[in-house]
């Protein structure tokens, strides 16, 4: 079972965090800090797995972003690596050539996609079509919902 997933930038900015077990906020911050330090210190070409506390860390860097998963002792490292890749593919497909900014400005979408893909730390559906269908359906609903608004209204100045 996956315990948590983190996305952070080369500069150590946390872009997305998903925790699959109840963890106190303070501990989360501590773990994130510690783990980012460990992962960012590693050189390219090093192996994608490391032991950290009682967990296995599986990470991979895509452009400026590190995707980092913590899984349990008996979990399969290679398949976790492909969980990361599939998630990246999903983001890419949804945003169209995804970049870090997409995830910053549409963080809620990134969470929705992750939720459709992983749930309770286990993989929910591995089919790319299956996951994207769910997200696109939601977007369709959203577009129907909303009438365009003026910029002023958006800024709360109307």
């Amino acid at each position, binding site marked *: 079972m996956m315990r948590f997933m983190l996305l952070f930038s080369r500069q150590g900015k946390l872009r997305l965090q998903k925790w699959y077990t109840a963890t106190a906020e303070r501990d989360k911050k501590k773990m994130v800090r510690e783990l980012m330090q460990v992962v960012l210190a590693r*050189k390219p070409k090093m192996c994608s797995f490391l032991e950290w506390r009682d967990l296995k860390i599986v990470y991979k860097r895509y452009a400026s972003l590190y995707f980092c998963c913590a899984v349990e002792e008996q979990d399969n490292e290679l*398949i976790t690596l492909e969980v990361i890749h599939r998630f990246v593919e999903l983001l890419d497909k949804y945003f169209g050539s995804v970049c870090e900014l997409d995830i910053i400005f549409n963080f809620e979408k990134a969470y929705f996609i992750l939720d459709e893909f992983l*749930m309770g730390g286990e993989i929910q559906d591995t089919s790319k079509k299956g996951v994207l269908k769910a997200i696109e*359906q939601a*977007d369709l609903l*959203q577009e129907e919902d*909303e009438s365009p*608004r003026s910029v002023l209204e958006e*800024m709360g100045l109307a």
Partner: protein
Amino acid sequence: MPAVSKGDGMRGLAVFISDIRNCKSKEAEIKRINKELANIRSKFKGDKALDGYSKKKYVCKLLFIFLLGHDIDFGHMEAVNLLSSNKYTEKQIGYLFISVLVNSNSDLIRLINNAIKNDLSSRNPTFMNLALHCIANVGSREMAEAFAADVPRILVAGDTMDSVKQSAALCLLRLNRTSPDLIPMGEWTSRVVHLLNDQHLGVVTAATSLIITLAQKNPDDFKTSVSLAVARLSRIVTSASTDLQDYTYYFVAAPWLSVKLLRLLQCYPPPEDAAIRGRLTECLETILNKAQEPPKSKKVQHSNAKNAVLFEAISLIIHHDSEPTLLVRACNQLGQFLQHRETNLRYLALESMCTLASSEFSHEAVKTHIETVINALKTERDVSVRQRAVDLLYAMCDRSNAKQIVAEMLSYLETADYSIREEIVLKVAILAEKYAVEYTWYVDTILNLIRIAGDYVSEEVWYRVIQIVINRDDVQGYAAKTVFEALQAPACHENLVKVGGYILGEFGNLIAGDPRSSPLIQFNLLHSKFHLCSVPTRALLLSAYVKFINLFPEVKGTIQEVLRSDSQLRNADVELQQRAVEYLRLSCIASTDILATVLEEMPPFPERESSILAKLKKKKGSGTVSDVEDTRKERNTNLGVSSVFQVTSSPSSDLLGLGNSSAVNSGSPPAASNAASLLVDVFSESLPVAPLGTASAPIIEENFSRCFSTSMLDRYFWPSHISGRLLRGSPNISKNAFQTRSRLTALSAFRFVCKNNGVLYENQLLQIGLKSEFRQNLGRMYVFYGNKTSTQFLNFSASVVCHEPLNLNVHTKTADPVVDGGAQLQQILNIECLSDFVEAPVLNINFRYGGSVQNIAVRLPVTLNKFFQPTEMMSQDFFQRWKQLSDPQQEVQKIFKAKHSMDTEITKAKIIGFGTALLDGVDPNPSNFVGAGVIHTKTIQVGCLLRLEPNTQAQMYRLTLRTSRGSVSQRLCDLLSEQF
């Protein structure tokens, strides 16, 4: 403004995010955030009702602020309101906020639960999914309570959509993990298992995760999943790569599902059904074969997915550990990966091989890769890979390659990463000890360890080498010589000084004959390090010095001079000061005899599990310490109990595996161990109740020296045997008339007066075995209840009644209420002797066998003499004491007829078994036996002298006991006279 992708309408949010990104400093960011928070708060508090869209936008902003790492203390209510919106995106943001921000004890949980309940019953699959996600994300107990019934129902309902089924399966999984007690099992078990047959591979994948978790907890209930999983797996591995459409990942058919199915099968032993087993073997072979095929794609995703399945298959093969061909094939495959250009594969191959090394089928095959692994240790650029190589070397080590592996690890240690040094040190120490053929090699290895990585050598490691040297007299001379040489180095590690100080203090005399290591040179060498050491080491050195005074009278003056110097006698550290004062005084006033007694060589340490191994286990978690021999042994004999005392393990004809074990109890130290692994250890136990086992290692008397020792080992080093030896109870005669109650003492109890182990009781149903240890006024008794029948004993209870609770205290741990047929149950009794006592405690056993209740009462062999500590003394001291105890009440004498043959050796063994020291050369008549000891109780200590005079012609004995307490004399006389 960044490119806004489709479906995004919240421009205000994007503006805010942009602002934050443009902030030049942390302060500017905080300022901007506070401004926004104030804005949102005023909106939420404002009179004007907010529309759904605005609410959504502000909640989303709050979420963003929270994710930046700032605290959010409002907005929860607005988020909960969003849940009941019928607009999907509003609902979605509400749920997201709640998943991220609501903790389980929130007051809002009832409102949230209501909203979830509505969505679950909405029959709208998108809403249902949102609700299920929220339950899984929060996973609190309240939610488990609220939805424990709904979620399984949704999962197995016939009309549930596939996507909802997937969510429901994983939601149930999460609830089962957080609150397993709330999730009803049973009625839906078989329907869940049959989800493995579902047409939709997404459903199967989610369901497999659920079943794995459930099967780990209740393997029997989910046994039927094995055949379904094998069938499913077989279909996947034999399918063409395009058959599974979207579930084929880079030309690999359903890799995630395959991994999960293989994982599920690892919850079970190999299938018993031959057909299923054959099919599974075929699957595994196919997976192994595919690894040899040329890749269908050059993409790393292809090889990762394929190898993920392969590694999981190898895990299953190792788990089954039953097919030698598969195991060897797996090993060969991993061998190929050891030299693969992908670092990830090398890492995983090293990791998997560690587990393969513990299988007897593949241990030898793994060993053939030793050179590659050693090479990895030397050339890998990634420390985590090197770490795996160290682990594997450790796992593949056995007697045949120990020297090579230890040498390689030592040489790696010189350059090893600081992060893994301590672990390597522990591993080297364990391997060196475990596979030592010559002790000289062992000592060299440990000293090398200290030389190379002294800072990483933990206390346990140097304690250990000392224990071993103390217990093995054939290595003591070598050890003394080696440490002496090692100490010559101008800069040596403090740990080496500790070891050197200890060993020279004990065994320096063994090398003192050589003029190059004369006593004075030894002392000067040690003392040259003194000023560079920390206080604990200095304390140890002071003890070594006082030991030198005893070993080498010729350096007494020099050492006294050192002790007398201001830097010692007036040392700012009380510990050092007190040692200097006391040692100096001791060396001035005590006669050579007393010095020799007080400062005599340390007695051997009792055998224990290696504390180093315990430390490694603690460090790594016991599961990951692949101790080759242990795992093999465990598999063979199913060793349940910790092997510390090596009880209950052997499946011998004797149900309890006790047999007629040694008749001798304390007094005699354990013979130095036989095989190479002389596992001795006193440090793994905490002191108060602890070091049970032999009674010979003296412990500090607090009244003599206060308890200020700096380490456990030092306690033993502290030369205060004196107190134990010279101490006698004050003449404090009990006025109570002594009453003999021996008729109540069952005969069986007398059988155990001189021994601690054996079968206490036996009838057709039950056998009760004992193993016990006493030390000072404490004792621990292991009681083994063996069920001789094939039927369970139910409502089993065993309790102890003490007739003299003020004098003797027995603490019982509750025994398991069920003893299976043929099984054995262990119960531990902790015994504390408060004062002298007569009545042995009674063990009451009740259980139901068949229809009837069985009651058994047995007297436990806890007798006063168990709390003896033997006392060695010289003839002169003995008679001086003897004369002091001349009060008529203090002496009890008995003349009785011999019941057994009057064999001298047996008699000696019995007296030692009784607990006293057997004193040779005290009695002018060599055929008489003389013993001395101290009875330890919590309140008093009673010194005791005894004399046994056999008259072989008359087949009679005369036994005389003198103690400071009449009642004690009487009781001991009664107990001992029954033995001859």
